[in-house]
């Protein structure tokens, strides 16, 4: 007899964890924000546009976005030793690609816009929290943008699709195990980022993508409110 599926923390399949977004948390930065999914907390700071160094990386046609994602040593249970990390390098690049399509950087030739993302506390979906925080920080920094970008992870736990994967769900072992699909959408529904770890068929994947798009629409509303709330205090 098949056991009915339920998420470890009791959420419904389309429920995200409690989302928190706050803009303007780092006074020194040109733009900054915090974004969290439940216990996963990301902070982002933007510095720029500023002169790009080293010179050979300058682009004379437009500004360059340079994202840097790092987890702090005590964000996870097993302390992360400080130092270069391939996973972080890949996530940094994927974050670049997720955000770049909405940025209008032709006004800033030979300049760089540095986005620093640090994960303060990790409970899976860290790159998604990072992208959400970075998008807010870029808007706060006054970078011209066509749109915001919102990001969420879809999981497939055995055969069940869920929105906003937690660490417990990432480690799901029953049946087909866990598949993890982080995605990012612009606020007019274009996909700028997708990754997949696991096993899934085309139909289910497309269903998951639709679920992510709907979740991102909700995230967008939270991001919009965070920016407007910040401006009201100014």
């Amino acid at each position, binding site marked *: 007899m098949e056991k009915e599926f339920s998420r470890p923390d009791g959420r419904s399949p389309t429920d995200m964890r409690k989302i928190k977004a706050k803009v303007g948390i780092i006074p020194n930065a040109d733009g900054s924000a915090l974004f969290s999914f439940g216990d996963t907390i990301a*902070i982002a700071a933007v510095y720029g546009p500023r002169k790009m160094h080293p010179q050979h990386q300058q682009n004379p046609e437009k500004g360059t976005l340079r994202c840097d994602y790092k987890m*702090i*040593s005590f964000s996870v249970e097993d302390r992360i030793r400080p130092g270069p990390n391939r996973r972080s390098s890949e996530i940094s690049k994927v974050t670049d690609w997720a955000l770049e399509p909405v940025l209008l950087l032709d006004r800033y030739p030979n300049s760089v816009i540095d986005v620093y993302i*640090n994960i*303060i*506390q990790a409970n899976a979906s860290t790159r998604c929290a990072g992208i959400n925080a970075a998008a807010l920080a870029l808007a706060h920094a006054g970078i011209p943008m066509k749109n915001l970008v919102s990001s969420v992870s879809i999981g497939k736990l055995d055969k069940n699709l869920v929105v906003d994967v937690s660490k417990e769900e990432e480690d799901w072992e029953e049946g087909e195990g866990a598949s993890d699909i982080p995605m990012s959408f612009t606020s007019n529904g274009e996909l700028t980022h997708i990754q997949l770890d696991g096993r899934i068929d085309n139909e289910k994947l497309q269903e998951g993508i639709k679920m992510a798009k709907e979740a991102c629409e909700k995230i967008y509303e939270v991001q919009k409110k965070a920016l407007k709330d910040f401006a009201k205090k100014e």
Partner: protein
Amino acid sequence: MSEIIKINKDRIEEYLSKGKRFDGRKLDDLRDIVVETGISKNAEGSARVKIGKTEVLVGIKMDIATPYPDSPDKGNLMVTAELIPLSSSRFENGPPRINAIELGRVIDRGIRESKFIETEKLCIEEGEKVWNVFIDIYSINDDGNLLDAAGIGAIIALKNAKIPKYDKEKEKVLYGNLSDEKIPLSNEIPIPLTIYKIGGQLIVDPNKDEEDICETRITTSGFNGTIFSMQKGEGGSLKLEQMGEVLDLAKKVREKIFLKIKDYL
């Protein structure tokens, strides 16, 4: 490019010579200190400290390791500081530069020399297994005096930390499963305080504009009149006659800091 603006420096020094500072503080006044503990749940202990607009995060992690041969019955301490580019346009990515290295070592000195952590009580099996305590410091916004913010964060995070459960049979640390046991700490708390010299005047807790123009600084850690560690940083010099003033001021302001943070200690 130097961020220092000479006419501002002249004005700051002029004002200091009258015993005043731009933000209305007296020379020995601290900015508001705001503390939050337990801000990162995967750490064994953590704290967020804001002094004015300066902010640091400090986390405690623990693991089991073999002890050093010259201290087979004592746990170990390692303090690391990272000045991350998120916190200031002056910090870059990459291996720690000397300012981060010095900061970590200065905080380490205070905690180690005061014997604040009772390392003999961190022994599980003499010569075989002891607890390592890692104190990791991150700058979140640099508006001057990261040194004292970090030192305060470290002692509060230590006070807030609990030892994880240890499965002796499987020889595994059960992270995420904290015991009720706190890290064994003594009552002699290494309260940090750095004194900065600007235009001949001694001040405490500078903001960034003030810190940029300081000629020299002295960091002390101490408790109840005993000093555990000291470090003079930056170039510059102090007259012998001024040392007495430095030590008196340090003692006075360390007490102020203690009063402000004692609820967390």
